[in-house]
């Protein structure tokens, strides 16, 4: 009896094994339904493993081939690549200057499919090892948890650097680096007890970047390369809510202007008052600090004319020694004549490029589905050469970008996945200025993005780990009074 049972068991085992074997494979001429889409992307040599899943699969096999070296990984519906194997593979790929070829076989609804192989091109141009972002649910007026996080892109370690649960649920704006340097950064903590949290040379300070002459406390900002100054906009911001499908939230300024803050003398240098009364926002310094790029639009009645507000890209001199603004502003890109509005200009650290967001109107591109990244070559002084980055942009919002310190990479927040939840994508810009297909920040569990209810806002790259954590921010919030600033009287050359 026992023998029969054994034979019967053996029969069942082999029968099941045969059912599950790879002997009946349907070969397809399509790419696998990967999530996230990591097919044919360019990777930095220092990126964490690109773990992925195959949508709808109950069994997955992935073969990573580099010349004659092959590694096979299996999983139920996802592929997790061990860190050590991954590192060796990337280094060898960069050394040999050969692509990694990935062949995926997946079992979907009982059938095994062999998909077209795709390539991972590895470049020795490293990505800055840290990226910071704000984790927030993509809401409207109300916020719940807001956390600023720092993620090591070389592995999966994420650290919370500020948490609004420790600061009485105060609103926190995104974290911004200067020169991609971890010892130079700021973010705004709003409400009573808040201020601009400045991390400079490893020391944390809290500043009240507001005087009664200004429209508002400092909002959008960017550091001068010296780290002594930062340029900010001051804005009277009003939210509005769209009624049509696909549109969501509109945020517009009823007034806006620019200031430069001097962090050594706690002085605010306002934009020259003899310029016409216009909307000015999203200022950034040029790579050498001699210019300030900003977005400018003529004043109009809002919200009635909201669909007609278009910002051009302008620049004005800034004299670091004299601490003065220039006397004339140049139009760098007349976006309004192209029917678009410029937002969030960011100059590359090597001074060659300016990456900006082009929306069809307004100043809040994050909820504009048509929003794209455009690249402006600053070397061409005479003609305006714009690369509309067709291989980078999606049909959803692509914005909130920042550069890597070597100017070869940029990171941006894209809602391409579902139109709602933004995620950080990395894009390689090669020496010829060609942008490669971007890829999303890898996660240990690739399903994480499917489950999460938070957006990754304003990802910013950094060359190192930040010298503070959420407890430091809590202490600063509770125990330190914000430093006052004073307005400088004459502000232009």
């Amino acid at each position, binding site marked *: 009896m026992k023998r029969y049972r054994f034979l019967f068991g053996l029969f069942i085992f082999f029968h099941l094994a045969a059912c599950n074997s790879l002997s009946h494979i349907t070969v397809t001429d399509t790419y696998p339904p990967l999530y996230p889409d990591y097919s044919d992307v360019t990777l930095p040599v220092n990126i964490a493993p690109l773990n992925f899943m195959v949508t709808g699969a109950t069994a997955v096999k992935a073969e990573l081939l580099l010349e004659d070296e092959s590694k096979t990984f299996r999983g139920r519906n996802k592929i997790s690549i061990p860190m050590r194997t991954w590192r060796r593979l990337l280094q060898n790929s960069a050394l040999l200057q050969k692509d990694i070829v990935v062949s995926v076989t997946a079992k979907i609804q009982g059938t095994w499919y062999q998909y077209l192989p795709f390539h991972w091109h590895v470049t020795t141009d490293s990505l800055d090892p840290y990226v910071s972002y704000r984790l927030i649910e993509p809401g409207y007026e109300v916020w*719940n948890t807001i956390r600023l996080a720092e993620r090591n892109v070389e592995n999966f370690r994420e650290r919370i650097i500020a948490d609004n649960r420790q600061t009485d649920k105060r609103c926190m704006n995104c974290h911004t680096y200067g020169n991609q340097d971890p010892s130079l950064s700021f973010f705004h903590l709003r409400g009573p007890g808040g201020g601009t949290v400045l991390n400079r040379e490893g020391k944390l300070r809290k500043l009240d970047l507001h005087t009664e002459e200004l429209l508002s406390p400092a909002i959008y900002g960017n550091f001068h390369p010296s780290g002594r100054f930062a340029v900010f906009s001051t804005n009277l911001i009003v939210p509005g*809510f769209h*009624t049509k499908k696909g549109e*969501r939230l509109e945020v517009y300024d009823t007034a806006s202007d620019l200031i430069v803050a001097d962090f050594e003398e706690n002085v605010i240098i306002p934009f020259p008052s003899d310029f016409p009364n216009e909307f000015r926002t999203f200022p950034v310094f040029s790579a050498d600090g001699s210019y300030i790029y900003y977005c400018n639009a003529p004043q109009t009645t809002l919200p009635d004319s909201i669909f007609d507000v278009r910002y051009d890209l302008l620049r004005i001199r800034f004299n670091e020694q004299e601490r003065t603004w220039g006397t004339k502003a140049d139009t760098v890109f007349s976006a309004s004549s192209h029917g678009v509005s410029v937002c969030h200009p960011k100059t590359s650290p090597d001074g060659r490029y300016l990456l900006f967001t082009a929306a069809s109107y307004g100043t809040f591109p994050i909820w504009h589905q048509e929003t794209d990244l455009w690249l402006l070559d600053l070397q061409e002084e005479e003609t305006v050469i714009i690369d509309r980055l067709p291989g980078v942009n999606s049909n959803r919002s692509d914005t909130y970008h920042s550069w890597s310190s070597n100017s070869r990479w940029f990171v941006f927040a894209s809602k391409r*996945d579902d*139109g709602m939840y933004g995620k950080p994508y990395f894009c390689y810009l090669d020496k010829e200025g060609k942008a490669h297909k971007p890829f999303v920040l890898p996660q240990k569990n690739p399903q994480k993005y499917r489950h999460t209810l938070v957006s990754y806002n304003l990802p910013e790259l950094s060359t190192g780990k930040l010298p503070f954590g959420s*407890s430091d921010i809590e202490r600063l919030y509770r125990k330190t009074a914000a430093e006052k600033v004073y307005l400088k009287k004459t502000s232009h050359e």
Partner: protein
Amino acid sequence: MNKLFKTLRWLLPCLFVPAIFLFFGCLYPHHLHYHEQFQLFLTTPEYFFEMILRPGGMADYLGTFITQFFLFSRVGALLMALFLGGMYVLLRAISQRIMTSKASIALSFIPPFFYWILLCNENFLPGGIIAILLPLVFWLLSLIIKNNKKQMLFVFILTPILYWFAGGSVILFTLGYAITQRKYIFRGVAALLLTVALFLLAKVLLSQFPLPRLIYGADYFRFPASYPPAVWILWLLCLIIPSVSALLTRLLKTPVRETIAAVLLSLAVFIPGTYMLAVNTNLQKEEIMAYDHYVRMQQWDKAIQRADKKMPTSPLSVACLNLSLCKSGKMSDYMFWYYQNGPEGLIPTFTRDFTLPMITGEIYYHLGFINTSQRFAFEAMESLPNYWKSGRALKRLAETNLINREYKVAQKYLHILEHTLFYKAWAKRTSEYLGNEELIASHKEWNTLRKYRSKTDFLDSEQEKDMMLGILLQQDLSHYMAYEYLLAYCLLTKDLDRFMQYFLLGSELRYARLPYSYQEALLYLWSLSHDNPIQTVPYPISDHIKRNLLSYQNTYVNALRPEEALKKNHANTYWYYLHFRK
């Protein structure tokens, strides 16, 4: 006397537990629905780990597990009765273990009675009971262990685990142990020190939480930054009652005295307890929650029947009633038969909390303001002070995204809901609609809302609700609900010029006769500028409304106190609202 005591012993629990069931099942059922809608228990390991990653997390996890059953109020009431009854049983057993006392039988009812009274406040969470029950169970277990060393070992090993599971209520376990260690005081002190050390260690490990939060542990209260003293009192009661029992036994030396004390204490507990329960029971809130529940479940008739029994007065209840009337096709006729609370009782203005946007979002949803409804659901969930998610809000978000053809976002929410016990079936059914235009077209509600939703883009303005409704109506002149809300808004704001202007937009709507409230408004308007309005009015006004106006005018002109005089026969007319409601 002994017989009397025996009777008390079974009679009190037999009264107490069914009373809780009846209270929550019949008098307070919508408080249970209210709790259910502001939490989301997920069956995923991620949710489990997310919850248990802080002290008291397991109690909260079990609390949300239980609260999901509150979707069915009778089941919720039964659970509440069982858990509060269980608290009594444990306290009684602990008291008996410390020292057998007949007199103290009623004292063990004090903590569950106290928690019952706390639960009359909708912000005290039912899950807190778990955080009390866990240490009581382990306290009882420690008392069952006879061997002192084994008992000590049990307490010292269990304390950290119990702290992690139940939060600061572990103090019941350690302090309870300390109280019983008269011979070995050091052991008791050591157990207490261990508890304090655990609180401090938790602060070091979880620096993002303030210390009081780590001492509190589980979520007894919806607002985690608030630490109601009632919780400390509850802990104290759980601790001192077994000790008081021991004291009573020593004081009351004869069985007769003990029985008399038991009777007196029973009266002393139950009479003030019942009084406190009555004082803390908030039936006005229960009423709002009831209307909200009917609207959520689309039980329009139930809302109207409730209003017929007792007229609602709060803006939220009235707003729910108006929606129910409109969905039943009765608003334009009968809205003034009920108390009207101005435009806030039609479409309440947005506030940053978790209750009002959820209710107002329902109105916008049924009107076809899909984006606004989505915003309100999102904002309501974001406003939840304890950072939890809401099953109701996620369901609505899935629906609005489905209607807006944002299938990937809808899929995300449905995927989450598929990991719940009671939303799973709906989520699975709804998943079949994703991207399936034909199937959606066959869905009565979603297809209608797709037809009605805003097709032109404008920024919505809560200050100009009539403009928004007007735009919606002009897109589809057959949109009855938009028309009726638009006219109701004008009537409630007493803006009769606009009423007249918008009234004409209804030319394409096919009413069998003019709705009563419109007839009243039109006749009144006409009477303002014409000498003989009854004869000359060009609108099809029914005879009884004409007679009514004459009677109203007569009383209004001649009565000393017209408001009082008109109340009896004309309080259900628009004219009465126009003249006397603020």
